[in-house]
């Protein structure tokens, strides 16, 4: 009996390598050469028999094996398919944890409906198991923060999925301010906002206040004013989650009124207002391909991403916010379903979780593609990354082999 149990444990630990003890041994940044049967650089067509050289945490060279020679002393890692480290363009992982208990759900403070001053870095848990979970599927960068459940729930941040604490992990401490329009933004019985029109009125009032403050020299130094000034000055965008067509249009209307930057998020009805989104010039972080339809998301389509792309709109995919299970989606799986639907090529689907996500997040100078000088963030697979039966075999972040788990 006991032996049988051990066999099961072996199955879990050895064959499928749920846990691996190699990681600790390979924590140092070394000079690494990643050899891939196919290397998707996302800066050009895939390279057959490619090599990525890594030195001091950065990409030193990328190209076919015939033209990139591996210097002596480089550790060689082989993979069937190599891609840039994946980017989840919108999640709440790290603020919300896998237990789903009050003590690990920190992406929403229910005390007030408009709290743009809440910083994500003050809540981010770099050691959260869901961060590790994503890392093991090749996701190396996440745009995470306060959840879309209040008019303004707080700030977002950009982090690498490696680092022993928030300071080590953080790329951008304040990326955007999370605003929600629609049913999810209502504050509950007897409190405001309680309607769509009230949401818009409250958001406009806050922006008017910020605009007035921006003209004063002595605007004071309260936290809310500080962050709202950064919005008005176009230093950072609002991340506006809106699903119904009228909510998307409200977001665009308000953005125009105040000449602020906006990243549209969710946008289940995008396929109904493509022209308006295109005219706004705003990029879109579209809902997960496998998101559930119902309520504000009743019209969502797994073809939204492809339709937005076809309209010439920049699109990234997200794992989004889940109140229950899966406590986080895996953006690789969501891109896979988009590719599987075949309105997008695998290359296009991959761009939504790599280079286009990086562009929307303003971090494409560092991540999102395999190019010389960029951060050495790499995901490795034993086949087509999108196939259900393919495994992620390793993840490199900042030139460090941070996962060898076979997922």
């Amino acid at each position, binding site marked *: 009996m006991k032996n049988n149990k051990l066999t099961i444990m072996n199955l879990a630990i050895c064959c499928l390598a749920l846990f691996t003890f190699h990681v600790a041994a390979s924590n140092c940044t070394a000079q690494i050469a990643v050899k891939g049967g196919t290397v998707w650089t996302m800066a050009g067509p895939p390279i057959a028999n490619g090599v990525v050289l890594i030195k001091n945490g950065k990409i030193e060279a990328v190209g076919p094996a015939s033209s990139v020679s591996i210097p002596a002393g480089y550790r060689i890692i082989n993979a069937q398919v190599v891609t840039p480290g994946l980017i989840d363009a919108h999640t709440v992982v790290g603020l919300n944890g896998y237990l789903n208990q009050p003590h690990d759900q920190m992406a929403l403070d229910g005390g007030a409906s408009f709290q743009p001053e809440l910083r994500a870095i003050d809540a981010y848990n770099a050691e959260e198991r869901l961060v590790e979970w994503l890392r093991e599927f090749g996701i190396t960068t996440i745009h995470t923060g306060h959840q879309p459940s209040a008019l303004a729930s707080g700030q977002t941040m950009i982090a690498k999925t490696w680092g022993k604490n928030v300071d080590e992990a953080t790329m951008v401490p304040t990326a955007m301010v999370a605003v929600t329009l629609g049913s999810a933004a209502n504050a509950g019985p007897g409190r405001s906002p309680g309607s769509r029109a009230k949401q818009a009125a409250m958001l406009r009032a806050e922006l008017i206040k910020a605009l007035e403050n921006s003209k004063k020299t002595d605007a004071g130094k309260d936290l809310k004013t500080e962050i709202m000034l950064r919005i008005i000055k176009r230093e950072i965008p609002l991340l506006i989650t809106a699903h119904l067509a009228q909510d998307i249009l409200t977001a665009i209307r308000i953005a125009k009124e105040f000449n602020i930057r906006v990243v549209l998020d969710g946008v289940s009805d995008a396929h109904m207002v493509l022209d308006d989104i295109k005219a706004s010039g705003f990029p879109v972080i579209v809902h997960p391909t496998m998101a559930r339809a119902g309520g504000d998301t009743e019209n969502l389509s797994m073809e939204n991403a492809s339709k937005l792309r076809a309209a010439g709109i920049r699109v990234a995919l997200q794992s989004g916010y*889940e109140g229950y299970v899966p406590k*986080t989606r895996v953006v690789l799986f969501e891109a896979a379903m988009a590719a599987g639907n075949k309105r997008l090529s695998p290359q296009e689907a991959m761009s939504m979780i790599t280079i286009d996500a990086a562009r929307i997040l303003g971090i494409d100078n560092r991540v999102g593609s395999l190019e010389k000088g960029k951060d050495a963030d790499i995901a490795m697979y034993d086949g087509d990354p*999108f*196939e259900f039966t393919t495994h992620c075999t390793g993840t490199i972040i900042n030139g460090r082999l941070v996962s060898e788990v076979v997922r």
Partner: protein
Amino acid sequence: MKQLYLCALAVLVLACPLLGQSRPTAFVNARIIPVVGQPIEQGILLVQDGKIKAVGDARTVRLSADVQTFDLAGKTIMPGLVDSHSHVGSGSGADASAPIQPDVRLLDGINARAASLQRAQAGGITTVNVMPGSGHLDSGQTLYLKLRDNAVKIDDLLIFGKDGSYAGGIKFANGTNPIRAGGGSFPGTRAKSAALVREQFIKAQEYRDKIKKAGKDATKLPARDLAMEALVDVLEHRRVVHFHTHRHDDILTALRLQKEFGFRIVLQHVSEAWKVADEIAKAKAPASIIFIDSPGGKLETTDISFINGAALEKAGALVGFHTDDGITDSRWFLRSGGLAVRAGMSRDKALYALTMANAIMLDLQDRVGSLETGKDADFIVLSGDPLSVYTHVLETWVEGKKVFDRSDPKDYLIAVGGKGASDGEGAEHIHCFDGDIGENE
């Protein structure tokens, strides 16, 4: 008079194709995965009157002159998928009045026209066990449905046995979902949960004994009690217990109760199955598992793993998969097979777990779950390998009738979503992996 005859004749001729498929239909040149038996290249599936007449190839299947032929070269045919645990149809079961309500039937609270049923057809599901939620120790009787087309009432989807009864099981649950702090008659602990269930089964045994003792003397029969009648059905193996359970100790508790009362059980969810796979196999308890994209969501599912399928297979247990729709969408049910194989399960057993294993769990193995002569003509046409992300369900057939066709714009809308694809229910209508949201909160 002559005109009347002509008219009647015309009606007969027109009606003929509607009267089942008296003309045989052959689906030819496809790769056929019968699930029971080896895959057949260039296969032939012969269907007549809603039943499978033959499965084979040109050497083994003779086609009559009047056969209607569909050329499916390059396509794959496999049995219609069987989902052993779902909440499609927006059904409801027990209310908040008591933790054990065997008398409540999902039959009396399900919407046969819900969009979720169409989504299941789009996912290739042809037979489904629709259950009430898990916020009770027993939330009522479940329904096994055939996802026939154009249902106007639930009767159109029922599966009837030879005795005229409709097929279904009963839902039980343990772990944290039925536990309600200060919940009146509801349990506050796991041990109390078990005690309450045992108490009811002992009552049911006594009720059954009274009936047996009365024999043919109607005056000695106990007063009718709908709850007791349902539990007697369970004790007499006329109704299978679908037991929602997650943590390893809860799984063992479910098996302990099963052993004490001898009822037939299907373990549902079984999130920590990999920890007690040998015990599950030894108890000969079928396990219906689910694939969730990340662990957690609640404390008792923190150790859920993609390896459950492989671990149970290795231990020799009967493994099926389920959607728990809306926890996972019926349209991606085939994906469960892919994720199982990703974590080490064999392809054959993964395909079996999507079809035949579930049919066995629902006592429908003589009618569905595989492509075998004499079984219901429930099958799906796929664009490629069943476990590839690039494969689409092109057609779904139930009892020889096409119920989903991806090339039909209306059906395509259901398959990919968009305006008009949903009836607005769904996103927040989550029952079972969790407690009954709304009732508990």
